[in-house]
């Protein structure tokens, strides 16, 4: 106690700061950093969970590069990202932009848009899976059939399955993005728009030259967040293609699902860890790239 009393105010602050930081530091070290480091280590080893770990060097990575399924999965993952992020951002911006101007039932409408975000992805995936079934079960095909349009093979086609799975994933994320966009729109002072009205510029100019540039911080945040989300897509795919996860013919399989199968179906932990490291590097690279491109100059 005497020792503590002799400390300067600054030193006492440091002692307290570290006292409070100790728990999260321990937590992060044990739950995050140690497994991460271990995963990187395992990616250079062979391990089936039960036996000994044996050093494999770069074998796992070599296998990855030579694996046609990995490249297919890599393409799929980027397809989710490249389609999902812009589509969801454009839709959520359009909804937020108009919802912001709507007074009528504003709160109720906002709640409706936010509901999917609170719904379990598993439940949602199964409902959508039902939508996509052929006649006479599926909602979409029934609707098409009733107006005389031939059925569409949604989930059993190698070309349609990925967009069909992406749709509910986009829909699920809209609520969150709309709320964030609306907060961003509210933060723009009204006088900016009033000044533009007096200057007599078109609505289009106001949108492109005032609203969107001032929303840039919001957009950066949402681009990075939604990109990370789409790069890590798993539950929608897994639940909608549960008979043959990632199928048909791996056409919907994302990287996370491949990692899951390699680790817990094939018990090839070294190979799964190598895939995880690749995913980590991709996430890191994409996020840094986006921040760099979208950052204020």
């Amino acid at each position, binding site marked *: 106690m005497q020792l503590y009393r002799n400390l300067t105010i600054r030193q006492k602050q440091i002692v307290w700061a570290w006292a409070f930081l100790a728990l999260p530091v321990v937590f992060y070290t044990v739950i995050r950093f140690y497994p991460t480091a271990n995963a990187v280590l395992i990616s250079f080893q062979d391990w089936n969970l039960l036996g000994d770990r044996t050093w494999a060097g770069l074998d796992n990575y070599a296998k990855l590069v030579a694996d046609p399924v990995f490249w297919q999965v890599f393409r799929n993952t980027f397809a989710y990202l490249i389609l999902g992020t812009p589509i969801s951002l454009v839709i959520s911006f359009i909804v937020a932009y108009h919802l912001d101007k709507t007074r009528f039932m504003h709160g109720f409408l906002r709640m409706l848009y936010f509901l999917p975000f609170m719904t379990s992805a598993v439940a949602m995936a199964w409902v959508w899976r039902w939508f996509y079934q052929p006649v006479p079960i599926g909602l979409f095909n029934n609707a098409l059939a009733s107006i005389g349009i031939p059925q569409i093979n949604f989930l059993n086609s190698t070309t349609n399955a990925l967009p069909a799975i992406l749709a509910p994933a986009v829909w699920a994320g809209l609520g969150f993005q709309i709320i964030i966009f609306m907060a961003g729109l509210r933060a723009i002072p009204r*006088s900016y728009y009033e*000044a533009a009205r007096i*200057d007599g510029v078109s609505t289009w100019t106001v949108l492109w030259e005032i609203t969107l540039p001032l929303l840039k911080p919001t957009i950066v945040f949402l681009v990075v967040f939604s990109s990370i989300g789409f790069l890590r897509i798993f539950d929608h795919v897994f639940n909608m293609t549960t008979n043959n996860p990632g199928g048909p013919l791996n056409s919907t399989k994302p990287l996370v699902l491949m990692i899951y199968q390699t680790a817990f179906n094939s018990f090839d932990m070294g190979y799964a860890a190598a895939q995880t490291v690749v995913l980590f590097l991709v996430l890191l690279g994409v996020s840094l790239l986006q921040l760099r491109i979208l950052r204020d100059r």
Partner: protein
Amino acid sequence: MANLILRDLVKTFDRTEVLHGIDLEVADGEFVVFVGPSGCGKSTTLRLIAGLEEVTSGTIEIAGRVVNNLEPKDRDIAMVFQNYAIYPHMTVRKNIGFGLRSSKAPRAEKEKRIEEVATILGMSDLLSRKPSQLSGGQRQRVAIGRAMVRDPAVFLFDEPLSNLDAQLRTQMRLEIKKLHQRVGSTIVFVTHDQVEAMTMADRIVIMKDGYIQQVGTPAEVYHKPANTFVARFIGAPSMNMIPGAVNGGGTLALETGGTLAFDRPLPEGRKVTLGVRPEDLGPGHDNPVIEGKVTVREPLGHETLIYVGTASGEVIAKADGRTPPEVGETVRLGALTENMHVFDAETGEALA
């Protein structure tokens, strides 16, 4: 160049009427300041003139044209906002040029116009800066430049100086006044600061609760206030108000005792309020009005303000800067009859 005429202007928000029939004529090239406490309707009036709010009833005429149903851009006005409304992501040049976006003039001409305005405002070397690199006064100037570049018939200013510190405010006040003398356009300026109104205006419009209280030159509203509200609102410290009643023979009896002779006709038997400005009221005067004990002294150097507790409450008076009365001393305060204002005690209207 244009005049501005408001006729019986009424504005209602939901069911609350906030402006109750404003009538005003602003001459071409005149600098008119709307002043009043917050919520008096001065900003609403300005926004109606700008076209940012819709008129409930009455007409607004700019340059002989009723503009009630015209979009802001078609009214030939420009507005400077309280928070400047300059865009943080655009350079000064783009911000000033934004006012010309809808104009069909050739590019070179627009550029020339921007340069001209920048020269007038003394910010030619700041054109490529972003607003974040400017000081408060410079941002204010960009906002003014953006309005000037449109060369409008009427300039509207919505409390443009209230975000500046005191020193800068005084400086910008002067700059805007000089600018007006140079450009000569009609200006409507809204402020809650009576000093701003007094120093800048050709004419002042004093508003309260959606009514115009008085319209007049700074000298008129100061020396001939129409009612007690104007009398107390204009001038600092505020005018002293002492209750009394008019006796026969044109004399005025104060509640605290003492009778004042007036050479002006006063309505006999009426309860009145006597108004005297602190600078007109002082100790050792030939025409004593009221007496009391000095409670506080505020030395200002060239003079000293003394707060005197009287039977009618506290009054403020001016005393000599070198030898003011001591705190606790009893003083008799007097004033010249011509510097006294008499108001009806009930309606507050000026009687003489």
